[in-house]
Protein backbone atom coordinates (compact mmCIF):
# COMPACT_ATOMS: atom_id res chain seq x y z
CA UNK A 1 0.00 0.00 0.00
CA UNK A 2 1.09 3.55 -0.67
CA UNK A 3 1.03 6.80 1.24
CA UNK A 4 1.20 9.72 -1.14
CA UNK A 5 2.87 12.85 0.21
CA UNK A 6 1.87 15.99 -1.67
CA UNK A 7 4.46 18.44 -0.44
CA UNK A 8 3.16 21.91 -1.22
CA UNK A 9 5.82 23.68 0.84
CA UNK A 10 8.65 21.65 -0.72
CA UNK A 11 10.06 20.87 2.71
CA UNK A 12 12.89 18.44 2.01
CA UNK A 13 13.79 17.94 5.67
CA UNK A 14 10.17 17.03 6.45
CA UNK A 15 10.02 14.51 3.62
CA UNK A 16 13.33 12.91 4.61
CA UNK A 17 12.37 12.58 8.26
CA UNK A 18 8.92 11.28 7.28
CA UNK A 19 10.35 8.61 5.01
CA UNK A 20 12.67 7.44 7.81
CA UNK A 21 9.83 7.26 10.32
CA UNK A 22 7.52 5.51 7.84
CA UNK A 23 10.25 2.91 7.24
CA UNK A 24 10.73 2.52 10.99
CA UNK A 25 7.10 2.18 12.05
CA UNK A 26 5.19 0.80 9.08
CA UNK A 27 4.53 -2.69 7.87
CA UNK A 28 5.35 -2.24 4.21
CA UNK A 29 3.89 1.19 3.53
CA UNK A 30 5.57 2.84 0.58
CA UNK A 31 5.93 6.61 0.76
CA UNK A 32 5.59 8.39 -2.58
CA UNK A 33 6.55 12.04 -2.75
CA UNK A 34 4.88 14.36 -5.22
CA UNK A 35 4.55 18.08 -5.77
CA UNK A 36 1.60 20.21 -6.82
CA UNK A 37 2.67 19.77 -10.44
CA UNK A 38 2.76 15.98 -10.60
CA UNK A 39 0.49 14.45 -7.94
CA UNK A 40 -2.55 13.76 -10.18
CA UNK A 41 -1.20 10.58 -11.90
CA UNK A 42 -0.42 9.07 -8.48
CA UNK A 43 -4.09 9.36 -7.50
CA UNK A 44 -4.92 6.75 -10.15
CA UNK A 45 -2.68 4.17 -8.48
CA UNK A 46 -4.83 1.29 -7.26
CA UNK A 47 -2.49 0.67 -4.31
CA UNK A 48 -2.96 4.18 -2.95
CA UNK A 49 -4.22 3.95 0.64
CA UNK A 50 -4.01 7.53 1.90
CA UNK A 51 -2.83 10.99 0.94
CA UNK A 52 -0.83 13.40 3.09
CA UNK A 53 -0.77 17.09 2.22
CA UNK A 54 1.99 19.15 3.78
CA UNK A 55 2.04 22.94 3.70
CA UNK A 56 3.06 25.92 5.79
CA UNK A 57 -0.43 27.40 5.75
CA UNK A 58 -4.01 26.38 5.20
CA UNK A 59 -4.90 28.14 1.98
CA UNK A 60 -7.00 27.76 -1.15
CA UNK A 61 -4.33 25.57 -2.79
CA UNK A 62 -4.64 23.00 0.02
CA UNK A 63 -8.43 23.00 -0.32
CA UNK A 64 -8.22 22.69 -4.11
CA UNK A 65 -5.91 19.69 -3.78
CA UNK A 66 -8.39 18.18 -1.30
CA UNK A 67 -11.19 18.73 -3.80
CA UNK A 68 -9.28 17.02 -6.58
CA UNK A 69 -8.55 14.06 -4.27
CA UNK A 70 -12.26 13.89 -3.37
CA UNK A 71 -13.11 13.79 -7.08
CA UNK A 72 -10.56 11.10 -7.98
CA UNK A 73 -10.35 8.90 -4.87
CA UNK A 74 -13.18 9.92 -2.53
CA UNK A 75 -12.62 6.91 -0.26
CA UNK A 76 -8.97 7.71 0.51
CA UNK A 77 -8.38 9.29 3.91
CA UNK A 78 -6.66 12.66 3.55
CA UNK A 79 -4.13 13.78 6.16
CA UNK A 80 -2.83 17.30 6.58
CA UNK A 81 0.31 18.57 8.28
CA UNK A 82 0.96 22.23 8.92
CA UNK A 83 4.40 23.67 9.53
CA UNK A 84 4.47 25.84 12.65
CA UNK A 85 0.93 26.94 13.21
CA UNK A 86 -2.22 26.16 15.00
CA UNK A 87 -5.50 25.17 13.43
CA UNK A 88 -8.66 26.70 14.83
CA UNK A 89 -11.79 24.55 15.27
CA UNK A 90 -13.31 26.38 12.27
CA UNK A 91 -10.30 25.50 10.10
CA UNK A 92 -10.46 21.89 11.27
CA UNK A 93 -14.12 21.80 10.24
CA UNK A 94 -13.25 23.20 6.80
CA UNK A 95 -10.56 20.53 6.42
CA UNK A 96 -12.92 17.80 7.61
CA UNK A 97 -15.57 18.80 5.10
CA UNK A 98 -12.87 18.47 2.43
CA UNK A 99 -12.16 14.87 3.36
CA UNK A 100 -9.37 15.36 5.90
CA UNK A 101 -9.45 12.79 8.69
CA UNK A 102 -6.38 13.97 10.58
CA UNK A 103 -4.75 17.40 10.83
CA UNK A 104 -1.65 18.14 12.85
CA UNK A 105 1.06 20.79 13.05
CA UNK A 106 4.76 20.33 13.61
CA UNK A 107 7.94 22.27 14.41
CA UNK A 108 10.87 21.40 12.14
CA UNK A 109 10.12 17.67 11.93
CA UNK A 110 7.03 15.49 12.26
CA UNK A 111 6.86 13.64 15.60
CA UNK A 112 6.87 9.86 15.88
CA UNK A 113 3.36 9.82 17.38
CA UNK A 114 1.99 11.86 14.48
CA UNK A 115 3.60 9.52 11.94
CA UNK A 116 2.26 6.48 13.77
CA UNK A 117 -1.23 8.04 13.65
CA UNK A 118 -0.83 8.69 9.91
CA UNK A 119 0.22 5.09 9.37
CA UNK A 120 -2.79 4.01 11.42
CA UNK A 121 -5.04 5.60 8.80
CA UNK A 122 -2.99 4.11 5.97
CA UNK A 123 -2.61 0.56 7.26
CA UNK A 124 -5.91 0.41 9.11
CA UNK A 125 -8.00 1.35 6.11
CA UNK A 126 -10.74 -1.24 5.77
CA UNK A 127 -12.84 -1.56 2.68
CA UNK A 128 -15.88 -3.77 2.21
CA UNK A 129 -17.30 -4.21 -1.25
CA UNK A 130 -20.56 -5.65 -2.46
CA UNK A 131 -22.62 -4.80 0.61
CA UNK A 132 -26.38 -4.61 0.30
CA UNK A 133 -28.28 -2.02 2.30
CA UNK A 134 -29.09 -4.65 4.93
CA UNK A 135 -25.38 -5.42 5.14
CA UNK A 136 -24.76 -1.72 5.74
CA UNK A 137 -27.25 -1.87 8.60
CA UNK A 138 -25.42 -4.84 10.10
CA UNK A 139 -22.07 -3.08 9.71
CA UNK A 140 -23.42 0.00 11.48
CA UNK A 141 -24.85 -2.16 14.23
CA UNK A 142 -21.48 -3.87 14.75
CA UNK A 143 -19.73 -0.53 14.89
CA UNK A 144 -22.29 0.78 17.35
CA UNK A 145 -21.94 -2.26 19.58
CA UNK A 146 -18.18 -1.83 19.51
CA UNK A 147 -18.60 1.83 20.57
CA UNK A 148 -16.54 2.78 17.54
CA UNK A 149 -15.56 6.32 16.60
CA UNK A 150 -15.25 6.15 12.84
CA UNK A 151 -15.98 7.77 9.52
CA UNK A 152 -17.67 5.40 7.13
CA UNK A 153 -17.55 6.32 3.46
CA UNK A 154 -20.42 4.63 1.67
CA UNK A 155 -20.61 4.68 -2.10
CA UNK A 156 -22.68 3.04 -4.81
CA UNK A 157 -21.90 2.86 -8.52
CA UNK A 158 -23.02 5.98 -10.37
CA UNK A 159 -24.00 7.80 -7.21
CA UNK A 160 -22.50 10.41 -4.98
CA UNK A 161 -21.05 8.77 -1.86
CA UNK A 162 -21.70 9.76 1.74
CA UNK A 163 -19.79 10.01 4.97
CA UNK A 164 -21.43 8.54 8.03
CA UNK A 165 -19.86 9.46 11.35
CA UNK A 166 -20.13 7.47 14.56
CA UNK A 167 -18.98 8.78 17.91
CA UNK A 168 -18.58 6.07 20.53
CA UNK A 169 -21.05 3.92 18.68
CA UNK A 170 -23.67 6.61 18.20
CA UNK A 171 -24.55 7.24 14.56
CA UNK A 172 -24.59 10.99 14.62
CA UNK A 173 -23.84 12.63 11.30
CA UNK A 174 -24.07 11.99 7.58
CA UNK A 175 -23.24 14.20 4.64
CA UNK A 176 -22.11 14.12 1.04
CA UNK A 177 -18.34 14.62 0.71
CA UNK A 178 -17.37 18.21 0.17
CA UNK A 179 -20.84 19.54 0.81
CA UNK A 180 -21.98 21.91 3.49
CA UNK A 181 -22.51 19.96 6.72
CA UNK A 182 -24.87 22.44 8.36
CA UNK A 183 -27.98 20.90 6.79
CA UNK A 184 -30.08 18.35 8.60
CA UNK A 185 -30.31 15.81 5.79
CA UNK A 186 -28.30 13.11 7.57
CA UNK A 187 -31.17 10.78 8.23
CA UNK A 188 -32.61 11.41 4.75
CA UNK A 189 -29.24 10.43 3.32
CA UNK A 190 -29.24 7.17 5.28
CA UNK A 191 -32.80 6.58 4.14
CA UNK A 192 -31.63 7.01 0.54
CA UNK A 193 -28.90 4.40 1.05
CA UNK A 194 -31.34 2.08 2.79
CA UNK A 195 -33.50 2.09 -0.32
CA UNK A 196 -30.68 1.34 -2.77
CA UNK A 197 -30.55 -1.98 -4.54
CA UNK A 198 -27.04 -1.62 -5.93
CA UNK A 199 -24.04 -3.12 -4.16
CA UNK A 200 -22.47 -0.65 -1.76
CA UNK A 201 -18.81 -0.12 -0.95
CA UNK A 202 -17.81 1.00 2.53
CA UNK A 203 -14.48 2.45 3.59
CA UNK A 204 -13.74 2.82 7.27
CA UNK A 205 -11.42 5.39 8.86
CA UNK A 206 -11.03 5.08 12.61
CA UNK A 207 -10.72 8.00 15.04
CA UNK A 208 -11.15 10.70 12.39
CA UNK A 209 -11.72 14.43 12.73
CA UNK A 210 -15.31 14.73 13.87
CA UNK A 211 -17.93 17.20 12.66
CA UNK A 212 -18.76 20.10 14.96
CA UNK A 213 -22.47 19.51 14.59
CA UNK A 214 -24.51 16.37 14.24
CA UNK A 215 -27.50 16.04 11.96
CA UNK A 216 -28.81 12.67 13.13
CA UNK A 217 -30.32 13.09 16.53
CA UNK A 218 -32.51 10.04 16.90
CA UNK A 219 -31.19 6.89 18.58
CA UNK A 220 -29.26 4.17 16.82
CA UNK A 221 -32.21 1.79 16.87
CA UNK A 222 -34.11 4.00 14.47
CA UNK A 223 -31.32 4.03 11.93
CA UNK A 224 -30.99 0.27 12.13
CA UNK A 225 -34.71 -0.21 11.72
CA UNK A 226 -34.47 2.01 8.71
CA UNK A 227 -31.60 0.04 7.24
CA UNK A 228 -33.09 -3.24 8.34
CA UNK A 229 -36.08 -2.53 6.11
CA UNK A 230 -38.81 -3.25 8.66
CA UNK A 231 -41.56 -0.93 7.42
CA UNK A 232 -42.19 2.54 8.83
CA UNK A 233 -40.62 2.78 12.27
CA UNK A 234 -42.31 5.05 14.78
CA UNK A 235 -39.63 7.67 15.15
CA UNK A 236 -39.57 11.29 15.94
CA UNK A 237 -37.19 13.81 14.44
CA UNK A 238 -35.87 16.45 16.78
CA UNK A 239 -33.83 19.60 16.27
CA UNK A 240 -30.22 19.44 15.23
CA UNK A 241 -27.92 19.73 18.20
CA UNK A 242 -24.40 21.00 18.44
CA UNK A 243 -21.94 18.40 19.71
CA UNK A 244 -21.55 20.64 22.68
CA UNK A 245 -25.25 20.27 23.45
CA UNK A 246 -24.81 16.56 23.91
CA UNK A 247 -22.04 17.25 26.33
CA UNK A 248 -23.64 20.42 27.57
CA UNK A 249 -20.41 22.31 27.49
CA UNK A 250 -20.00 24.79 24.65
CA UNK A 251 -16.39 25.48 25.67
CA UNK A 252 -15.24 21.93 25.08
CA UNK A 253 -13.37 21.36 21.87
CA UNK A 254 -11.68 18.30 20.49
CA UNK A 255 -9.37 17.79 23.42
CA UNK A 256 -8.94 14.77 25.60
CA UNK A 257 -12.04 15.50 27.67
CA UNK A 258 -14.06 15.74 24.48
CA UNK A 259 -13.40 12.12 23.71
CA UNK A 260 -13.23 10.68 27.19
CA UNK A 261 -16.39 12.10 28.67
CA UNK A 262 -18.90 10.70 26.20
CA UNK A 263 -16.98 7.42 26.11
CA UNK A 264 -17.42 7.04 29.82
CA UNK A 265 -21.09 7.81 29.59
CA UNK A 266 -21.87 5.62 26.62
CA UNK A 267 -20.16 2.69 28.28
CA UNK A 268 -22.35 3.20 31.30
CA UNK A 269 -25.58 3.89 29.53
CA UNK A 270 -25.39 1.93 26.31
CA UNK A 271 -25.91 5.02 24.21
CA UNK A 272 -26.59 8.67 24.76
CA UNK A 273 -30.26 9.33 24.22
CA UNK A 274 -30.07 12.10 21.70
CA UNK A 275 -33.69 12.41 20.69
CA UNK A 276 -34.69 14.54 23.65
CA UNK A 277 -33.28 17.77 24.99
CA UNK A 278 -30.96 17.26 27.94
CA UNK A 279 -31.94 17.70 31.55
CA UNK A 280 -32.09 21.27 32.81
CA UNK A 281 -28.61 21.87 34.30
CA UNK A 282 -30.06 23.85 37.23
CA UNK A 283 -32.13 20.80 38.33
CA UNK A 284 -29.14 18.54 37.79
CA UNK A 285 -27.01 20.83 39.95
CA UNK A 286 -29.46 20.57 42.88
CA UNK A 287 -29.64 16.76 42.58
CA UNK A 288 -25.85 16.56 42.30
CA UNK A 289 -25.48 18.00 45.81
CA UNK A 290 -26.74 14.87 47.64
CA UNK A 291 -25.72 12.54 44.78
CA UNK A 292 -21.99 13.28 45.01
CA UNK A 293 -21.45 12.23 48.66
CA UNK A 294 -23.82 9.30 48.08
CA UNK A 295 -21.51 7.79 45.47
CA UNK A 296 -18.44 8.47 47.57
CA UNK A 297 -19.95 6.79 50.63
CA UNK A 298 -20.80 3.74 48.50
CA UNK A 299 -17.30 3.64 46.96
CA UNK A 300 -18.44 4.37 43.40
CA UNK A 301 -16.19 7.36 42.74
CA UNK A 302 -17.06 10.73 41.28
CA UNK A 303 -20.46 11.55 39.81
CA UNK A 304 -20.36 11.54 36.00
CA UNK A 305 -23.96 11.99 34.89
CA UNK A 306 -27.50 12.28 36.18
CA UNK A 307 -30.45 10.73 34.44
CA UNK A 308 -34.06 11.33 35.33
CA UNK A 309 -37.04 9.44 34.03
CA UNK A 310 -40.41 11.10 34.28
CA UNK A 311 -43.59 11.33 32.23
CA UNK A 312 -41.70 13.12 29.44
CA UNK A 313 -39.17 10.32 29.10
CA UNK A 314 -35.50 10.10 30.01
CA UNK A 315 -33.40 13.24 30.40
CA UNK A 316 -29.66 13.14 30.85
CA UNK A 317 -27.22 15.69 32.17
CA UNK A 318 -23.55 14.85 31.76
CA UNK A 319 -21.52 16.78 34.30
CA UNK A 320 -19.14 19.26 32.75
CA UNK A 321 -15.49 19.25 33.87
CA UNK A 322 -16.23 22.46 35.83
CA UNK A 323 -19.13 20.81 37.65
CA UNK A 324 -17.01 17.77 38.38
CA UNK A 325 -14.27 19.98 39.73
CA UNK A 326 -16.86 21.84 41.82
CA UNK A 327 -17.77 18.52 43.39
CA UNK A 328 -14.15 17.62 44.10
CA UNK A 329 -13.58 21.00 45.74
CA UNK A 330 -16.71 20.61 47.85
Amino acid at each position, binding site marked *: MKLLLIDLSNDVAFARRLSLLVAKHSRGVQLIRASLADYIPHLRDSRLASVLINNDELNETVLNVCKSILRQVPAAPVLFTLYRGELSPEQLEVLRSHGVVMATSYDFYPGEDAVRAMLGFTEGLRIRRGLCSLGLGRLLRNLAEGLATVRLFVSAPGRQGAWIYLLNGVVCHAQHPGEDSSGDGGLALLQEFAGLEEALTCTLSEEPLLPRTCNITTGNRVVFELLGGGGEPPWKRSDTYEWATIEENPNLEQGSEYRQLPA*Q*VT*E*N*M*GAITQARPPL*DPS*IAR*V*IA*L*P*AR*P*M*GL*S*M*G*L*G*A*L*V*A*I*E*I*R*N*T*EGRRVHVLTPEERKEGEDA
Partner: protein
Amino acid sequence: MHSGIGGDTMLEKAFLDLTRLDGILGGVLFSRRGEILLMQLPSVFSFDAVLEAVSLGVQALSTAEATGAVTEITLHYEVGRIHLRRIGPYGAIVVAIGTMDRDVVEIGFNVVAACLRQKSES
Protein backbone atom coordinates in the same frame (compact mmCIF):
# COMPACT_ATOMS: atom_id res chain seq x y z
CA MET B 1 -26.56 -8.02 55.86
CA HIS B 2 -30.31 -7.61 55.62
CA SER B 3 -33.20 -6.79 57.84
CA GLY B 4 -36.86 -7.58 57.14
CA ILE B 5 -40.05 -5.82 56.10
CA GLY B 6 -42.81 -7.10 58.37
CA GLY B 7 -45.62 -9.21 56.93
CA ASP B 8 -44.93 -8.84 53.19
CA THR B 9 -42.86 -11.80 52.08
CA MET B 10 -43.67 -11.44 48.35
CA LEU B 11 -42.39 -7.89 48.23
CA GLU B 12 -39.39 -8.83 50.35
CA LYS B 13 -38.56 -11.78 48.12
CA ALA B 14 -38.94 -9.76 44.92
CA PHE B 15 -36.67 -7.01 46.18
CA LEU B 16 -34.05 -9.40 47.54
CA ASP B 17 -34.07 -11.34 44.26
CA LEU B 18 -33.47 -8.07 42.43
CA THR B 19 -30.47 -7.29 44.63
CA ARG B 20 -28.97 -10.74 44.01
CA LEU B 21 -28.86 -10.45 40.23
CA ASP B 22 -25.46 -10.55 38.52
CA GLY B 23 -24.09 -7.04 38.27
CA ILE B 24 -26.08 -5.71 41.21
CA LEU B 25 -24.11 -5.15 44.39
CA GLY B 26 -27.14 -4.73 46.59
CA GLY B 27 -30.01 -2.51 47.54
CA VAL B 28 -31.99 -0.83 50.25
CA LEU B 29 -35.73 -0.31 50.62
CA PHE B 30 -36.68 2.62 52.81
CA SER B 31 -39.69 4.61 53.95
CA ARG B 32 -40.44 8.21 52.96
CA ARG B 33 -38.89 9.34 56.24
CA GLY B 34 -35.68 7.48 55.51
CA GLU B 35 -36.18 4.47 57.82
CA ILE B 36 -34.47 1.38 56.45
CA LEU B 37 -37.02 -1.42 55.93
CA LEU B 38 -35.01 -3.94 53.98
CA MET B 39 -31.34 -4.09 53.20
CA GLN B 40 -29.19 -6.48 51.21
CA LEU B 41 -25.64 -5.26 50.81
CA PRO B 42 -22.21 -6.88 51.16
CA SER B 43 -20.68 -6.41 54.59
CA VAL B 44 -17.98 -4.11 53.19
CA PHE B 45 -20.60 -1.36 53.24
CA SER B 46 -20.73 -0.06 56.79
CA PHE B 47 -24.15 0.60 58.28
CA ASP B 48 -23.23 4.29 58.74
CA ALA B 49 -22.41 4.60 55.03
CA VAL B 50 -25.73 2.99 54.10
CA LEU B 51 -27.65 5.25 56.49
CA GLU B 52 -25.95 8.26 54.99
CA ALA B 53 -26.66 7.07 51.45
CA VAL B 54 -30.34 6.52 52.30
CA SER B 55 -30.73 9.98 53.80
CA LEU B 56 -29.05 11.49 50.72
CA GLY B 57 -31.24 9.32 48.51
CA VAL B 58 -34.39 10.64 50.20
CA GLN B 59 -33.07 14.15 49.65
CA ALA B 60 -32.26 13.49 45.94
CA LEU B 61 -35.67 11.91 45.31
CA SER B 62 -37.60 14.74 46.95
CA THR B 63 -35.52 17.33 45.05
CA ALA B 64 -36.26 15.62 41.75
CA GLU B 65 -39.94 15.15 42.62
CA ALA B 66 -40.27 18.87 43.27
CA THR B 67 -39.69 19.38 39.54
CA GLY B 68 -42.50 17.04 38.44
CA ALA B 69 -43.55 13.40 38.47
CA VAL B 70 -40.27 11.52 38.60
CA THR B 71 -40.32 7.75 38.33
CA GLU B 72 -36.62 7.01 38.52
CA ILE B 73 -33.24 8.69 38.98
CA THR B 74 -30.10 7.01 37.75
CA LEU B 75 -26.83 8.40 39.04
CA HIS B 76 -23.81 7.43 36.95
CA TYR B 77 -20.50 7.30 38.76
CA GLU B 78 -16.99 6.46 37.62
CA VAL B 79 -17.29 2.79 38.55
CA GLY B 80 -20.97 2.09 38.89
CA ARG B 81 -24.52 3.33 39.07
CA ILE B 82 -27.10 4.02 41.72
CA HIS B 83 -30.75 3.58 40.76
CA LEU B 84 -33.20 5.49 42.92
CA ARG B 85 -36.88 4.77 42.57
CA ARG B 86 -40.08 5.50 44.39
CA ILE B 87 -42.19 2.33 44.71
CA GLY B 88 -45.52 3.24 46.29
CA PRO B 89 -44.89 4.48 49.83
CA TYR B 90 -41.31 3.23 49.73
CA GLY B 91 -38.08 4.38 48.19
CA ALA B 92 -35.53 1.96 46.76
CA ILE B 93 -31.82 2.25 46.14
CA VAL B 94 -30.06 -0.29 43.98
CA VAL B 95 -26.28 -0.21 43.51
CA ALA B 96 -25.12 -1.71 40.21
CA ILE B 97 -21.88 -2.00 38.30
CA GLY B 98 -21.51 0.24 35.24
CA THR B 99 -21.93 -2.51 32.66
CA MET B 100 -25.12 -3.92 34.21
CA ASP B 101 -27.99 -3.94 31.73
CA ARG B 102 -30.34 -1.19 32.84
CA ASP B 103 -33.38 -3.00 31.47
CA VAL B 104 -32.82 -5.82 33.97
CA VAL B 105 -32.92 -3.33 36.85
CA GLU B 106 -36.04 -1.78 35.34
CA ILE B 107 -37.77 -5.16 35.15
CA GLY B 108 -36.77 -5.92 38.74
CA PHE B 109 -38.24 -2.63 39.94
CA ASN B 110 -41.43 -3.30 37.99
CA VAL B 111 -41.79 -6.72 39.62
CA VAL B 112 -41.36 -5.17 43.09
CA ALA B 113 -43.94 -2.51 42.21
CA ALA B 114 -46.34 -5.21 40.95
CA CYS B 115 -45.97 -7.15 44.23
CA LEU B 116 -46.78 -4.00 46.15
CA ARG B 117 -49.84 -3.33 43.98
CA GLN B 118 -51.05 -6.89 44.47
CA LYS B 119 -50.73 -6.52 48.21
CA SER B 120 -52.68 -3.27 48.31
CA GLU B 121 -55.47 -4.72 46.13
CA SER B 122 -55.91 -7.86 48.23
